[in-house]
């Protein structure tokens, strides 16, 4: 068996164990617990208050801009990570390069902030 397959075997054993444990606990609880459903119990739980509207709601379109900003800055981390792992090897040269990179990113954030994208209104 190759190394690759063996490392996947670990994952398979772990997932099998996880499914078995969770299934066993929920299964035992289902056998033991009393069941008396009524209307109050079946409505969706919303922090203890009566729910408003249906459960299928569209999220505010304003979230979109935050989501996109998050994704963009989040993904730029793929360039930070390889650098951070070998920080010492790259030394001062790598540091200066990264400062320039982050500086340009920060300018993008400053732009978004200045244009009022970050304001919730």
């Amino acid at each position: 068996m190759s190394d690759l397959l063996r490392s996947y075997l670990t994952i398979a054993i772990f997932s099998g164990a996880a499914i078995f444990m969770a299934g066993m606990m929920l299964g035992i609880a289902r056998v033991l617990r009393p069941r008396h459903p009524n209307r109050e119990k079946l409505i969706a739980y919303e922090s203890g208050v009566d729910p408003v509207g249906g459960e299928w709601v569209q999220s505010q379109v304003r979230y979109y801009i935050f989501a996109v900003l998050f994704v963009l800055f989040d993904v730029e981390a793929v360039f930070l990570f390889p650098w951070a792992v070998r920080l010492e090897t790259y030394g001062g040269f790598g540091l200066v390069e990264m400062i320039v990179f982050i500086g340009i990113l920060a300018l993008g954030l400053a732009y978004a902030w200045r244009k009022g994208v970050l304001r919730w209104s």
Partner: protein
Amino acid sequence: MLVNQFLILGAVLFCTGVYGVLARRNAVMVLMSIELMLNAVNINLLTFGLVVGSISGQVFALFTIAIAAAEVGVGLALVLLIYRNRSNIDVEELDLMHG
């Protein structure tokens, strides 16, 4: 090593993506199909990088990931713009100009 299996996975994902781009009418679904195609490319690049023993495959994949995020950011902004102006995002109905 499982080279062929990874390449086949990549090819299947890529074809699913192409089908999605051609068959879907909702612009967001088209965007998701394109993401699928780009991820198929990443699988290919990483597999080949391992086979060839060169770091280029992984570097290429990193750039693909970052640029795909930028593309999707712009794409969603355009879809939102269309939605604001016409309140639907059906790509087949974009036919103001022809000839």
